[in-house]
């Protein structure tokens, strides 16, 4: 074991003088960064207590996260109804977990459930109605809001992006040029502009009296924005498919939709899984921008909390906490996509 390590490091880390130099430099950098961070985050940190004044050790004050935990997770959602959010996420995670264990042919039903049925269940659970007390969307917040927007964005932007990609390759000029204009316009606008337009400008354009929920406007704005990116990624996959596949599908009598659904898209989407994952991770990390239009997702709550007179100057703990959460979720997303890639690449051999 130890001998193996020495051999390995000789080969990979110290094979010549400049590699040795780089290795030593990196070790020095790690030495500079890691011990102080561990001191701050664990050794000198305070974990128990109720107030900022309990934090006397000089390290991180995790009391802050503990006290604010509920707000960071759920925003101003009424405490007695938090189980409704939890239940929605349990259903979501559970369904995805289930897809690992069921047979191939049921996976399509799971996908169908996630895209067409789950959003409505989650919406009713979280917003209320049908006997549940209504919780207005302005009370939603925290990490839950980040996830709601990201999941809604992914679920809506994926089919929309696929349709746009297909439309852009259509032989019908009206559809083709509409899709090109649509994609290029949305890709040409920064997300922050989309958010401000959805939150502030869009209501001005509506006839007075019409009310579209602000969160809904923002969510649709994000989903459409992302769909333009998804469309371009998927288009890359469509173009990589050999013409013979289209010929073969047509020659056995398949129509346009059948050909795309059974032959073209399954293959095209498989080849662009890395690109789509990339887009979705970017989407997840873009959602905190809604803090700028006054929505209290996790970073919004951190900003609010650090301005609280009792908790002044707690920004670092809040940001580190948010960073860890985003890091973990992005990591899960990318490992899941790698798993999918591996699965599909073995399937075709």
């Amino acid at each position, binding site marked *: 074991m130890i001998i193996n390590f020495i051999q390995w490091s000789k080969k990979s880390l110290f094979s010549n003088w400049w590699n040795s130099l780089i290795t030593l430099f990196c070790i020095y950098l790690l030495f500079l960064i890691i011990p102080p961070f561990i001191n701050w985050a664990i050794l000198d940190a305070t974990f128990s207590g109720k107030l900022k004044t309990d934090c006397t050790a000089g390290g991180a004050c995790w009391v802050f996260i503990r006290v604010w935990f509920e707000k960071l997770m759920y925003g101003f959602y009424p405490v007695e109804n938090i189980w409704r959010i939890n239940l929605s996420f349990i259903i979501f995670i559970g369904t995805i977990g289930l897809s690992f264990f069921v047979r191939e042919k049921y996976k399509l039903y799971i996908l169908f459930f996630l895209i067409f049925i789950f959003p409505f269940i989650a919406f009713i659970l979280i917003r209320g109605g049908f006997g549940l007390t209504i919780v207005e969307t302005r009370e939603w917040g925290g990490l839950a809001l980040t996830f709601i927007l990201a999941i809604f964005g992914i679920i809506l932007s994926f089919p929309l992006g696929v349709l746009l990609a297909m439309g852009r390759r259509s032989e019908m000029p009206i559809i083709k040029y509409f899709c090109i204009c649509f994609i290029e316009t949305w890709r040409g606008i920064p997300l922050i502009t989309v958010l401000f337009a959805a939150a502030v400008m869009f209501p001005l354009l509506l006839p007075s009296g019409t009310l579209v929920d602000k969160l809904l406007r923002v969510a649709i704005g994000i989903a459409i924005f992302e769909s333009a990116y998804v469309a371009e990624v998927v288009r890359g996959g469509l173009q990589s498919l050999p013409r013979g596949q289209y*010929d*073969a599908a047509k*020659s056995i*009598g*398949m129509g346009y939709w059948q050909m795309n659904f059974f032959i073209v898209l399954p293959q095209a989407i498989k080849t662009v899984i890395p690109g789509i994952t990339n887009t979705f991770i970017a989407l997840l990390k873009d959602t905190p921008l809604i803090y700028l239009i006054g929505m209290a997702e996790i970073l919004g709550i951190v900003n609010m909390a650090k301005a609280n007179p009792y908790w002044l100057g707690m920004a670092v703990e809040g940001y580190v906490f948010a960073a860890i959460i985003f890091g973990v979720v992005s990591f899960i997303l990318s490992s899941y996509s790698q798993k999918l890639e591996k699965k599909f690449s073995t399937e075709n051999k």
Partner: protein
Amino acid sequence: MNEKVIELVAVNKWYDKFHVLKDINLSVFAGEKVIICGPSGSGKSTLIRCVNRLEEHQEGSIVVRGVTLGHDTKNIEKIRGDVGMVFQQFNLFPHLTILDNCTLAPTWVRKLPKKDAEQLAMEYLKKVKIEDQAKKFPGQLSGGQQQRAAIARALCMEPKIMLFDEPTSALDPEMIKEVLDVMIDLAKGGMTMIVVSHEMAFAKEVADRVIFMDEGRIVEEKETKEFFANPENERTKLFLSQILG
């Protein structure tokens, strides 16, 4: 005489400026086997791709089983279902098993119940002698097996006409025979076939007629025996002497 199932009259086709089919007239009768040969780039593949409208022609008329092909042709899928096609590069669907490749169109185009479609597929896979490969993916099969699977896939639509676009050109020599054997069986079963191929032994064995194309024209069209015994056109003679050695 049998009924005419395919009739091409004065068909012209251009790729942009390139005139690929020039005044093609061709009739094929039910049960007939027609071999098309000629140098590469002579328009053979384009010609048969026009018959199931994978390519569009610009002038002339193409009538397949009584339906005139054109922009306004309704149910082009229906016609394609009646006209099976086998490609040089097999074009199997790599993400589906051999069985799924074969049942896909029967299930979704012909709307057969899944069980019937599978039964039908196994029947044809048996016919092309790869029933034991049904659960495998195309990438796990040899070229010859893939091409036979492609033939089975086309046959599962129970077509009335089969088009073969250089079915053996992408195969290693030892695999050509297994594919040709399947095609000979099919021919003997009475299928109407148009085959683009340079396999002259195959032509001699099954073809009723042989057509020689050059530069987008049909330059020679004769009954098989006549074609090999007395080719008239200089280019046909040259081509035959090169290919027969």
